[in-house]
């Protein structure tokens, strides 16, 4: 055997051992909770927002805050001697395989006691599978695919509403609009990025459209990351829709908005979700993003009806220098719900946590969202979760629906491009 061979063999063996040891070395002193987000890859900006929401929630859990929010007025987890929560973040790179591996690593090497987060449904699917297999509670508040809670998992809970609710809310809103403006808006165009999430959204929308008696005039999946979307927009244009429902990630939202303008595609009611809620969106498209109606669970202007929102937003602003986005707010929920459960369980035993999670019944005034509260049904979906709709006006999101929480009047129809 040559010298090079021996040296190389040694180096490789040594580093493998070191890597292996790295996995075993850590022991727990704080309560570690894992979170897998897409921190690199083309949806990393959104992943980062989620991460910020989680970080703020942890600040609130670990510190003492005069907020009418669960876990805010106490420091750490009181029933465990004030133990602090520490979130271990991992990067899913937007890949289900990596998501699963990282979840496993967090659970087995970092010894996290529970998992939160995930953002992309495809990633949550495998990451939660890993957690389920290793019997670790997983509290989700950002991914929205309905399938996630329909697998009969014992340890998987979702705080936020899913796409079934979203799709229904969309059509309820359109119906409300029809009434309000006394105008038929029956021609609906579906536009969605073609991966797990977007295609599931579209499937739900198709279902609800049928239920509510709307006509789908265009059904257009597209490759997220496309260099050009002219043909998609031309198809949309020729279908002459009254309503556009768009499920994009942020990059596609930007590209589509620019192409809409370029090709003068105008739709009376322009509805979107997810990517449209990313602060990068308004920053990138500026004026051109005006009047999009976006699905959200949160908006700072809700502070008007729920002062807590304003206070939390202030904290967020202090920490990150801008308003809390719907994305960050959504991710903010899971750590709180989880911490509350750990506190009530008084134990880090997964089954104990699971048991109290099932008993969860948090009233609406103790959470950030404008919901009736948090309570899980048979499939561990929060039954009180619902959406609000916000509209971009003057470069900011304003709540416009449901009417009773609206802060601003909805602008309808969307004016022509040259009149914006």
């Amino acid at each position, binding site marked *: 055997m040559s010298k090079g061979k021996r040296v190389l063999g040694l180096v490789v063996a040594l580093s493998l051992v070191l890597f292996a040891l790295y996995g075993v070395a850590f022991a727990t002193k704080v309560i570690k909770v894992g979170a897998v987000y897409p*921190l690199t890859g083309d949806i990393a900006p959104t992943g980062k927002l989620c991460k910020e929401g989680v970080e703020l929630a942890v600040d609130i859990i670990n510190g003492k805050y005069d907020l009418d929010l669960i876990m805010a007025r106490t420091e750490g987890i009181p029933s465990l001697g004030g133990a602090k929560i520490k979130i271990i973040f*991992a990067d899913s790179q937007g890949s*289900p395989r990596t998501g699963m591996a990282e979840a496993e690593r967090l659970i*087995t*090497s970092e010894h996290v006691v529970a998992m939160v987060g995930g953002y992309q449904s495809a990633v949550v699917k495998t990451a939660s599978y890993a957690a389920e297999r290793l019997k670790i509670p997983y509290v989700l508040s950002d991914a929205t695919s309905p399938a996630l809670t329909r*697998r009969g998992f014992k340890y998987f809970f979702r705080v936020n509403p899913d796409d079934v609710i979203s799709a229904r809310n969309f059509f309820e809103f359109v119906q409300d609009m029809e009434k309000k403006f006394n105008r038929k808006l029956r021609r609906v165009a579906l536009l969605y990025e*073609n991966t*797990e999430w*977007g295609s599931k959204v579209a499937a739900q929308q198709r279902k609800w459209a049928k239920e509510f008696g709307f006509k789908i005039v265009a059904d257009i999946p597209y490759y997220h990351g496309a260099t050009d979307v002219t043909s998609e927009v031309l198809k949309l244009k020729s279908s002459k829709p009254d309503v556009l429902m768009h499920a994009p990630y942020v990059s596609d939202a930007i590209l589509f908005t620019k192409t809409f303008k370029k090709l003068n595609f105008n739709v009376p009611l322009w509805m979107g979700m997810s990517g449209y809620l990313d602060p990068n969106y308004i920053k990138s498209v500026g004026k051109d993003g005006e009047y999009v109606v976006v699905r959200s669970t949160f908006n700072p202007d809700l502070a008007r009806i729920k002062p807590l929102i304003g206070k939390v937003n202030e904290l967020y602003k202090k920490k990150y220098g801008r308003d809390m986005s719907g994305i960050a707010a959504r991710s903010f929920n899971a750590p709180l719900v989880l911490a509350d459960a750990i506190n009530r369980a008084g134990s880090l035993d997964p089954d104990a946590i699971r048991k109290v999670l099932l008993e969860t019944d948090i009233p609406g005034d103790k959470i950030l969202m404008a919901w009736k509260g948090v309570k899980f049904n048979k499939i561990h979906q929060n039954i009180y979760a619902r959406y609000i709709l916000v509209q971009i006006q003057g470069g900011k999101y304003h709540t416009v629906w449901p009417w009773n929480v609206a802060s601003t009047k909805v602008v309808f129809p969307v004016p022509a491009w040259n009149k914006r």
Partner: protein
Amino acid sequence: MEKGKHLYYVVLVVLAIVFPIVFNVPFVQHVAIMVFMYGMLAESWNVIGGYSGLFSFGQAAFFGIGAYTSTLLYMQLGLTPWIGMIAGGLVAIAAGIAIGYPCSKLKGHYFAIATIAFAWIINILFTNWSFVGAATGLSPELAPADSWYAFQFRSSKLPYYYIGLFLMLLTVYVVNKVIKSKTGFYLRALGENEEVAASLGVNIAKYRLISISIASFFTAVAGSFYAQYVLYIDPPSVLAHFLSVEIVLIAMFGGSGTIWGPIWGALILVPLSQYARAIWGGMGSGLDIMVYGFVIMVFSIFRPRGVVSFFIRK
């Protein structure tokens, strides 16, 4: 020398068998399983790219075909993925021939890009084909408990580890056997000079297809293995262009055209990327990708013939 060499291999295999018992940490085992999977993929690529001179950048297509075939057979017909794995391999061979036959006149870069195009087409078709779950992908129903029939193991990663190890060694064994046979000589002849090979009676088209078939088969088997390991497949995860590139990268990095080169490539690059991500990935700063890219770049400048060039004495 021969005897010493055998002993060396035996020791390595024994070490590989003992390794997960000593380091009974799932993440470490996961990395090892990925090493085996990529080792297998890179070794399969080696048959076409390393020996036969056909630089395929579309191996993800075959990987995906394997993953989809076994999963679909299990979900639709309840067929055990073990048979599905073989079936996937056979379907991949058919696909390989379907693309390889018209490509039989293409050389070098043109062939490489044809394979990229092929893999993309498969990806797009699968993304829009509802029978295979379209964009949503497929997740087989989870077996209630560990099951050899369902090829699902939940309580421990050890079965996956040993199956992966076995599959990788099997691939190495078969490739080695093939390369040392007449077929192997012919494949190498193709890789070095097709014109002369033809003049000496080598049926270029046939041996190209043989080469593609071997590679497709094992790539698909790895795909089935992956599907059973992750239990969720969708086009971005099993048909992605990046996967194809990674396979080539690992084989090249280790040293293509040698039996153990691709395995070395997997042994070094896979842990590098996994641990770089584990250590720096949580910051989301891109540092891990940077380090990964930098190591690859610098290494191939100094060792353009791959890791195995350490072993070849001047």
